């Protein structure tokens, strides 16, 4: 199945990735090949099958509501590309 350039651009926007025109071109062809291959699944009748969203027969993993130590501020901010005191800084957002 082919994906239109418009759809590709929309996907790139949803995924917040800036793609160069060459990248869009290459991706278009590659994704088409993969999607054509994936379309194989349409051959199967899955109308009576339940989906497996969790492979383990496990339920109810819960944690007691008692506080633990948090990270100290140097550990929290240690990798921040931009910070101001104890805050993470991002470009100004206009609401």
């Amino acid at each position: 199945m082919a994906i239109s350039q418009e759809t590709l651009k929309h996907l790139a926007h949803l995924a917040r990735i800036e793609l160069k025109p060459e990248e869009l071109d290459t991706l278009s062809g590659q994704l088409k090949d993969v999607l054509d291959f994936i379309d194989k699944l349409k051959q199967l009748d899955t109308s009576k099958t339940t989906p497996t969203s969790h492979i383990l027969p496990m339920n109810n993993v819960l944690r007691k509501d008692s506080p633990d130590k948090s990270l100290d501020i140097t550990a929290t901010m240690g990798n921040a590309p931009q910070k101001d005191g104890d805050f993470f800084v991002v470009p100004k957002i206009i609401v």
Partner: protein
Amino acid sequence: MELNTQAAHQLSNLLKEGQINSQDIVDALYRRIKATESRVCAYVRLKDTSLPKLGYPQDGVLSGIPVAIKDNICTEGLVTQCCSRILEGFRPPYDATVIRKLKKEGAVILTPKTNMDEFAFGSSTENSFFGPTHNPWDLRCVPGGSSGGSAAAVAADEAILALGSDTGGSIRQPAAFCGVVGMKPTYGRVSRYGLIAFASSLDQIGPFAKDVEDAALLMNVISGYDSNDSTSVNVSVPDYSMSLTNDVKGIKIGIPKEYFIEGMDPEVKKIVQEAIDKLKQFGAEYREVSLPHTEYAVPVYYIIATAEASSNLARFDGVQYGLRTLANSPSGQLMEMYKKTRGDGFGAEAKRRIMLGTFVLSHGYYDAYYLRALKVRTLIKQDFDKVFADFDCIITPTTPTPAFKIGEKVKDPLKMYLSDVYTISANLAGIPAISIPCGFTKQGLPVGLQILAKPFAEEMLFRVAYTYEQNTNWHTAKPKV
């Protein structure tokens, strides 16, 4: 004999006897790394890393033994970047649970981490920001992926033991290509806390080792329930070394017919058949079985894995860690920061998978792709359930071909994806699987034998693998690098 060429269980004995100390082992490793790395490139950031801390509990199961760690497992204070530009410089403020467990048993965590396909996206380690790793058996070939660095390091005696991760075969396939032992545990056997996620419902951390005994040793340490991981199963960990018995009498082996098909390398087919026959000599029985939905495993995987990946990788956005590329213009700054950072920071395969994953989850396509894939996953699991009702294990080749040349498949993603066909189903079904060396092609490339068992039956895998290994010599062969 150089210490770096030994297995962990051998070194443990020498250490206990006081014949050597841990520094001796590390020194031998570093000498080997110095001599070989320029050709193999199993490690990354070699120049930036400090020498490993040697202080350790003396009485741990792995005391004094160095372990190499794949670059997607968090090590506190040590750079962990999944071999991606977008996470450059990231120093996790915490250790993954498996690292804590290793440290508790006295293991020495090596500070250069091992090379991998960026974010574990790949089957060849060619998608690393740092460039490819070379197969020690033939430097023109790939070591497999995504844990190619770990596999190559162990194969080339640049590591004693290593950890990797397996989402669709990323431990087993490189183990096969590099002629070492690699295992993917049952999903939920080993904690994922601290493993930088690729596909949350498929990922598992597992061991690379020079022989089955070492693999069991490492599994003993890293396995077990972790309250930090809601997908970790509270089932007790047996002593896997108790399964190392040279006996497969009466073991029923299923050989799935769908795994021996056209397009398979004839040498691989022959070598694997010989291995199965050898097991028969020791008393195992085998029969042909069917896993009828095998041909759908790769498409199902590439829907589920990429969908989960597209979500797991959304956090790499320049806000709290890693690369941040700023906008050129003052307007629309945040949006541009996101898009440029991710455009600059992710490699081609990462972008491809994120786009595909975003597509299969998007409005209007979810039912036809993602939901349908979840249903076929059920069918694939049921295939295995049916076979394991009557058989103790399933044996297949680990890969349809031996290691391919660097550059051969990287430009054709679909071709690359198809090479995962034998390993992918185990991740979809959540079952454990091991790959052990079982021969060499005429070109001198290793061939891997894959053994699969039902959930939490790692003991069966160790038993069959150990029996085969003890009656052959493949695991003692060393590459001439």
